[in-house]
């Protein structure tokens, strides 16, 4: 993306005033999307954003500047600004020479979305819309969204690292509104993978439209959700958000380092039920949180965080790892060249257990079955977290019965982890998500088998 000599000169400029570490992150991102709403292809949007972010570290201080001007002058000005921001002292000149590292991408993009006709993309929206509306007159509104992006990045730093990645993601979602005597209800279905247009070889957009519509229609007859602590069974793929919030964020080394995590100083301890093995894995080919290198030039990693209930490690970025004299775990990510990287999850999942999922439900006298989760939020310092249920049912006498209305569930991470008493053998990845932290959003994946938590507080209104 940039001439190596130019990169070397930019890094040298950044180091000139005594920097201990300097990094150039170059990004060129093209995105396109198309939205159908209210029965009509409403708008197509496309755009390009490119630039470079330059980071200089002196002692414990990081200086950062970014520019959309990728010329020698633009990069040099940004490097000087970053160096000044890091308040570098005198320091001598340091010559930087980077050498490229080869990173294998395990799945090449088969059908680059930029080569697919816009009419073809738009056609998918229409198919999903028609399939959803065909589910019945109760469906009063449908919107469908197609999106693709190609993000090329280059990372070079004063340790001599030079790495590039080419990340292509494709996304499709359908949202329906059903209306009836009880008011309006919504249903949503989405899929997204770090692949090209071949996503649609597997993803059936008509089927997605039907499922989203059914979800909304089902909820028209939903009863108020229970209020209070009950056993909760989460379906396959659905529970990833639970772990993302219950412990994922609390295992990010930046939060741990500041004492803002309930999991600080607990490596080696039993923090979860022995059934739980939690892994963060940026190498999962094609998954939403997949990449070849992270946004600091480190290859993605397969990182075991909890093994059989015992906390084994945190997730690390360059800055935090450097302080500890270890290597980054490949979890340094950023929203764009305009942002500083920090510790982020990739694809976070719980490995499959041995239970028959049907038996987990049958063995639950009364409780709640959550088929689809919404987002969530956690306070890592206290461990208290919430996550939303967008499709859920009552469990009565070991059977799934009536649908219940939407709401949040609330729990405390360390407590909930010890309360997982059943784990199914039916592992699945969940829906694509965008994880927000400190104002930056990055794509993440998650997955779980069917699992049961012996007690979680459901935030409904029914006594």
């Amino acid at each position, binding site marked *: 993306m940039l001439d190596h000599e130019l990169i070397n000169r930019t890094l040298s400029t950044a180091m000139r005033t005594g920097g201990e570490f300097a990094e150039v992150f170059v990004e060129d991102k093209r995105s396109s999307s198309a939205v159908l709403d209210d029965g009509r292809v409403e708008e197509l949007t496309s755009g390009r954003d490119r630039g470079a972010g330059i980071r200089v570290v002196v002692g414990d201080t990081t200086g950062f500047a970014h520019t959309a001007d990728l010329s020698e002058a633009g990069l040099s000005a940004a490097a000087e600004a970053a160096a000044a921001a890091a308040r570098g002292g005198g320091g001598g000149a340091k010559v930087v020479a980077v050498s490229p590292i080869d990173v294998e991408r395990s799945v090449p993009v088969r059908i680059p979305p930029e080569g697919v006709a816009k009419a073809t993309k738009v056609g998918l929206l229409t198919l999903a819309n028609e399939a959803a509306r065909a589910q019945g007159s109760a469906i009063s509104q449908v919107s469908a969204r197609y999106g693709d992006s190609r993000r090329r990045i280059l990372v070079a730093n004063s340790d001599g690292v030079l790495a590039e990645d080419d990340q292509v993601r494709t996304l499709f979602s359908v949202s329906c509104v059903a209306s009836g005597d009880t008011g309006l209800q*919504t249903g949503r279905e989405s899929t997204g993978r770090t692949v090209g247009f071949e996503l649609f070889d597997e993803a059936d957009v008509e089927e997605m439209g039907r499922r989203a519509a059914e979800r909304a229609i089902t909820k028209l007859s939903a009863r108020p959700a229970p209020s209070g602590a009950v056993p909760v069974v989460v379906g396959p793929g659905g529970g990833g958000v639970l772990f993302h919030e219950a412990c994922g964020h609390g295992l990010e080394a930046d939060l741990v380092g500041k004492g*803002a995590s309930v999991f600080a100083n607990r490596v080696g301890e039993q923090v979860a039920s022995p059934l739980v093995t939690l892994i963060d894995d940026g190498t999962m080919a094609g998954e939403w949180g997949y990449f070849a290198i992270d946004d600091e030039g480190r290859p993605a990693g397969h990182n075991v965080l909890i093994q059989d209930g015992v906390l084994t490690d945190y997730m690390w970025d360059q800055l935090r790892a450097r302080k500890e004299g270890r290597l980054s775990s490949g979890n340094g990510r950023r929203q764009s060249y305009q942002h500083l990287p920090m510790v982020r999850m990739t694809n976070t999942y719980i490995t499959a257990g041995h239970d028959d999922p049907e038996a987990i439900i049958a063995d639950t006298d009364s409780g709640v079955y959550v088929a689809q989760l919404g987002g969530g939020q956690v306070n890592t310092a206290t461990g208290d977290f919430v996550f939303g249920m967008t499709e859920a049912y009552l469990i009565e006498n070991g059977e799934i019965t009536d649908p219940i209305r939407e709401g949040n569930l609330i729990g405390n991470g360390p407590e909930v982890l010890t309360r997982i008493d059943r784990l199914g053998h039916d592992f699945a990845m969940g829906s694509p998500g965008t994880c927000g932290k400190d104002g930056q959003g990055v794509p993440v994946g998650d997955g779980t088998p069917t699992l049961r938590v012996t007690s979680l507080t459901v935030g409904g*209104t029914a006594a």
Partner: protein
Amino acid sequence: MSELLDIATRVAGWANDGEQVEAFVVHETETEVRAYEGEVESFTRAESQGVGVRVIVDGKQGYAYAGTLDDTALQETLREARDNASFAEPDEFNGLAVPDSVEPASLELWSDAVGAFPTEEKIALAIELERAALAADTRISGIESAEYIDTAYESAVATSTGIAAAARETGCYVSVYTLAEADGETQTGFGFSIGRDPSELDPAIAAADAADRATRLLGASKPGSERLTVVFDPWVTAQFLGIVGHTLTGEAVLKGRSMFADRLGDVVANPMITLVDDATDPAAFTASALDGEGIATRRTPLIVDGELQAFLHNAYSARRAGSSSTGSAVRGGFKSGPSVGAQALTLLPGTQSQSELIAGIDNGFLVQGVSGLHSGVNPVSGDFSTGAEGLRIRDGELAEPIREVTIASTVQRLLQEVTGIGDDLQWLPMSSAGVSLVVGDVTMSGA
């Protein structure tokens, strides 16, 4: 400023016959200083710009953007927007805003003091903020972040239909996140101070608020489930109003995504509720004389004495509703076109202080923080369920802290069940103002 307007006007001038073109151009500079353990943890200087171009031809709309403003990028962006439009389906109501007779409010939102504020003083503010927060209470055990941020934002929008408008504003704030510890338990709190220029910032207030928020929850426990009266702290009310505002946009109403769609003229809230959106109020941090389409913002009463009186509109939703724009086009940056949204929502305040309101409650819950608004509140159905923490109210007095509970109702019921509004109206760094709000018959779910 005129430079951005020149660019926008030039692009709008490239419109072909029978074609409408709108260009939205932004330029923003930002400085962010983070302090940690008495040192600068990070110092960011950011300058960004971009252009978004909307094209409407034969009722079909397309959009494109670029993060650079050179002529080649501008031409490419327009070409791409045109191409995008050709694949959309026509809508007779599509069309850009046209100038109306409302004069933009005269607001002073720019201060040269931000640009002139020396770097050393920015750093000193962030470090002082961290120090003050640590010193505010012996139970403050650490700081998650302490930062100073300032921004200078300029924008311009021009259309081939005669809009040519430019705006600029500055802002700055300090904010701090604290950790408090007692008996092996940790709680967190935040505090901030915000202004148009640095002389308005008060790190002492931010530090005291952050320390208070973190320490007041120490020793909190999880209660059982019950129905009770809740008092929303101003911060919580402002977030709730944001959701209500969404349901009152022409976009949600026309597309059948609002429970208030056919309720104009109906009593939808307790008669003590009067809800107004008014971006011309200079006290609002989100004040703005122009909306995202370059139309003058104005005061729009939405609910008056409990009666639903109006919805918010941009040019498209107004045309489709047979109404006129309320100057409510909002943009989330240059990468997407304008939608409809509230810009500065506020309730008409009452006459009682928060403690006077609390004095009238036998059994209640002062909700000081909520979580999961994005995951447990459905603005289409109105289902409302959020995580909550705060203080128990017993016999008119504040009692023990509680945490790890949810509160649940529906947006419709919450509005009907309001039984008190405080006199403590305060503008917050979001598009709504906060005020203490008493709501009856809410379900609290706990152990």
